[in-house]
């Protein structure tokens, strides 16, 4: 079954376009349906918008900053849950809950 699945994946991968080719659909400025591709804008305008050479930092911190705020709140919530679960473990034995 693993061999069969590998064959299916190899067959699917043999049809993919080469990475970084300029004529790929994902590297075009305008997508198939006529809208603009945001990744193209980020690559062209990230340095002019934020004077930051690292495009990934600009995307995470500026264009997609609400998503990063959500990630930070997820981490904060995980910490709070661990704090609330493990805080009273010693005294919890004589609690009548």
């Amino acid at each position, binding site marked *: 079954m693993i061999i069969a699945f590998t064959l299916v994946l190899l067959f699917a991968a043999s049809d993919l376009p080469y990475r970084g080719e300029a004529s790929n659909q994902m590297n075009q400025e305008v997508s198939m349906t006529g809208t603009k591709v945001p990744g193209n804008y980020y690559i062209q305008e990230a340095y002019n918008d934020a004077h930051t050479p690292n495009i990934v930092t600009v995307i995470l911190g500026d264009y997609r*900053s609400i998503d990063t705020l959500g990630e*930070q709140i997820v981490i*904060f919530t995980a*910490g709070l849950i*661990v704090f609330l679960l493990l805080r009273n473990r010693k005294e919890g034995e004589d609690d009548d809950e």
Partner: protein
Amino acid sequence: MTNRSPSPIILLGTRFLSPYIMVFGFYVIFHGHYSPGGGFQGGTLLAASLLLIRIASGTKIASLQFKDYLATPYAALGVVIYFGTGLVAMIMGGYFLDYEQLPIPGLEAADLRYWGILIIELGIGLTVMTVLTLIYDNMVKGEDYA
């Protein structure tokens, strides 16, 4: 495990190693504008330097470095730094998290975005560092030897 005293070699080794890991964590946060890195990765490195001291020398000595009851307020402070940056930008007339409207005088719009990204990365790093320390402190509470 509970009654074993820590080896002096491990104590000296971790005390030697921990400040360098902390400096590298700050480097990863502040150099995230030019190289791979940022708040999450740098905060994890800062937490690693704190946890190394905590594992090697026990909670009592490590609480001289970072008190365990300070972890939750600092984690909340990191979230407040991020959220407050967005809120200040919104109050000053832009969108939420639109760093162009931050009230820092003498900077053009692109440089304001530069500093805004740095401020939120600091908030993220503070939260990640304190949350990882908080998780370790709560897991070993009452079970470590020192």
